[in-house]
């Protein structure tokens, strides 16, 4: 058990170090950063804010991780968020109950995922193009649902999902925490995770060895659609309305970035949902940190780009080779120690 725990923490080490470094840097320029206080029965503070604001990207990153592990990519998640937000708003304003609304919205997200999955798994279209179709058309569809306006609603139940709190934590944080753990358990406590990695490493070989490749591929895209639907509900509930133009705009890029920072290769194979969640939190920490530290907001994107390039260069194959070389060099300098083992 301790061995498993150790290998797990070793896997997450680079992300944890990066996150700690960023948080520490922010706390230098913004002294009250780590302060937490309880007001009106919930925790307040910059840290909680990061977890709360990061909820949509964390949720998208969970689904994106599984899709990327199959050597795919889902560009449509931002547009699906907009569609689902629009569906939720129009359903609640037309008098459906909250449970019905949630059911319809989550169903819509899964349906969008099914569409992507069928294009990729059955029609055998490259994932980046297959999901581009929905990315281009999605915002148009969302506007069709909202009829071009920003649909506002004031149903307390739906709003609670975006800004309520439970057990001192904001509800979005609880939602992604529970959902993330659930997905991680499902893929890791069963053979599903391994089969998904097998598809990512070599789709043809896994099909030949009896893996139900099309079913798993479609399921992966459906999971991504479901994540986008939950993220869309949270984003809509947060602003008490559905904005077809701006909901989830460019979040697909943030989600892909979160997965890459989390160390999952875009070429498929080994994946870690926890690392992707950490990646999403890192991105949100950068965003919040830049805001808090009082840099002129014009510099946000440049700093973000610089940090991303730095993390990516560290992960690139040549850099990794250099690290391995250095480690080998150090190991060869202590031959006696190695023999003793």
């Amino acid at each position, binding site marked *: 058990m301790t061995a498993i725990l150790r290998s797990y923490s070793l896997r997450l080490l680079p992300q944890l170090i990066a996150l700690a470094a960023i948080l520490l840097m922010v706390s230098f320029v913004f002294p009250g950063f780590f302060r937490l206080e309880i007001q009106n029965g919930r925790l307040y503070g910059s840290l909680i804010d990061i977890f709360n604001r990061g909820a949509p990207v964390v949720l998208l990153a969970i689904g994106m991780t599984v899709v990327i592990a199959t050597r795919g*990519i889902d560009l449509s998640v931002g547009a699906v968020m907009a569609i689902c937000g629009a569906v939720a708003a129009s359903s609640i304003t037309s008098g459906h109950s909250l449970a019905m609304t949630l059911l319809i919205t989550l169903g819509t997200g899964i349906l969008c995922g099914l569409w992507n999955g069928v*294009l990729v798994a059955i*029609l*055998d*279209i*490259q994932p*980046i*193009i*297959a999901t*581009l*179709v*929905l*990315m*281009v*058309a*999605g*915002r*148009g*569809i969302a*506007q*069709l649902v909202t009829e*071009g306006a920003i649909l506002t609603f004031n149903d307390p139940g739906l709003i609670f999902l975006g800004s309520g709190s439970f057990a001192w934590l904001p509800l979005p944080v609880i939602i992604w925490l529970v959902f993330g753990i659930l997905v991680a358990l499902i893929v890791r406590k069963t053979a599903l995770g391994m089969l998904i990695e097998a598809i990512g490493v070599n789709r043809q070989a896994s099909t030949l060895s009896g893996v139900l490749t099309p079913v798993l591929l479609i399921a992966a895209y459906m999971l991504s659609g479901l994540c986008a639907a939950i993220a869309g509900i949270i984003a809509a509930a947060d602003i008490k309305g559905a904005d*077809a133009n701006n909901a989830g705009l460019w979040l697909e*890029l943030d989600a*892909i*970035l979160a997965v*890459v920072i989390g160390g999952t290769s*875009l*070429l498929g194979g080994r994946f870690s949902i926890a690392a992707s969640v950490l990646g999403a939190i890192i991105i949100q920490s950068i965003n919040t940190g830049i805001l808090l530290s009082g840099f002129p*907001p*014009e*510099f*946000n*994107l*440049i*700093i*973000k*780009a*610089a940090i*991303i*390039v730095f993390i*990516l*260069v560290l992960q*690139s*194959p*040549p*850099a990794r080779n250099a690290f391995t070389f250095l480690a080998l060099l150090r190991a060869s300098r202590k031959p006696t120690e190695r023999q003793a083992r």
Partner: protein
Amino acid sequence: MNPKYLPLTATIVIFVLSYALCVAQYPNILSTRVIGNLLTDNAFLGIAAVGMTFVILSGGIDLSIGSVIAFTGVFLAVVLENTGIHPLVAFAMALLIATLFGAVMGAIIHYLEMPAFIVTLAGMFLARGMAFVLSIDSIAIKHPFYGTLKGLYYKLPGGGRITLIGGLMLLVFGIGILIAHRTRFGTDVYALGGGTATAKLMGVPVGRTTIMIYALSGLLAGLSGIVFSLYTSAGYSLAAVGVELDAITAVVIGGTLLTGGSGFVAGTFIGILIQGLIQTYITFDGSLSSWWTKILIGLLLFVFILMQKGIVYVSRSERRHA
């Protein structure tokens, strides 16, 4: 017919058919005025799409072009407002920066072996960020030289005008076609799209070609930024968001395979015209909402991808029987 020409032929057939449908409903679409405007309104997109065609032919992707267009526009506006530099010199500076920017991205992609998707995504953030740093306001360009440039046009019979930027787009497409099919660099790009390993074995200088492809895409994005600033007479850091998507869509509708190695620059031109035609039709109709543009283009994208799949399938089974 050679199956390699099938996607291009299908694109042209669809364009002619949809144009005929539009003309049947609104005969005025046939007028040279509408055609001239079609070229002018899509000039910046077309020029950027030529660069995107080369990138996609090589099997890569460039997400940074929209940001580079915005950066170029802001750069020109700031330089022209605060210094006495002549616009032509400013143009040269902007093109140089954009080309270097693309070349650096190409070098990172090649030497650090990172996916083009992520590298150009970081480039997209960086270019947009640099535009923000230069100015967050929309700056009008009032230089008299801009007025002169905008006044240049070739008058067509029927009152239509091919403006300077519309003509420039046609010129860029012409040069793009020549580069793709008549130069060593062009064949290297196609070879790279067929597979890096095979290209290397054939003696293609992979590193140099990759850097040149992204430099070319940067150069054309810069040129597109200049055209965009002529078109809008302003520089704004939030302009041209999502142009990279429109360019990718035009390339795919134009019959280029996103896997690389197969396609034509001329097809991209038709792809641009089809997108412009949809927009023109919606403007003519007046009652259709603008979001139908996106849905229609998405649908078109889907049809073309299916068609390409079908063609690849058919040509493969033919090869098997032969």
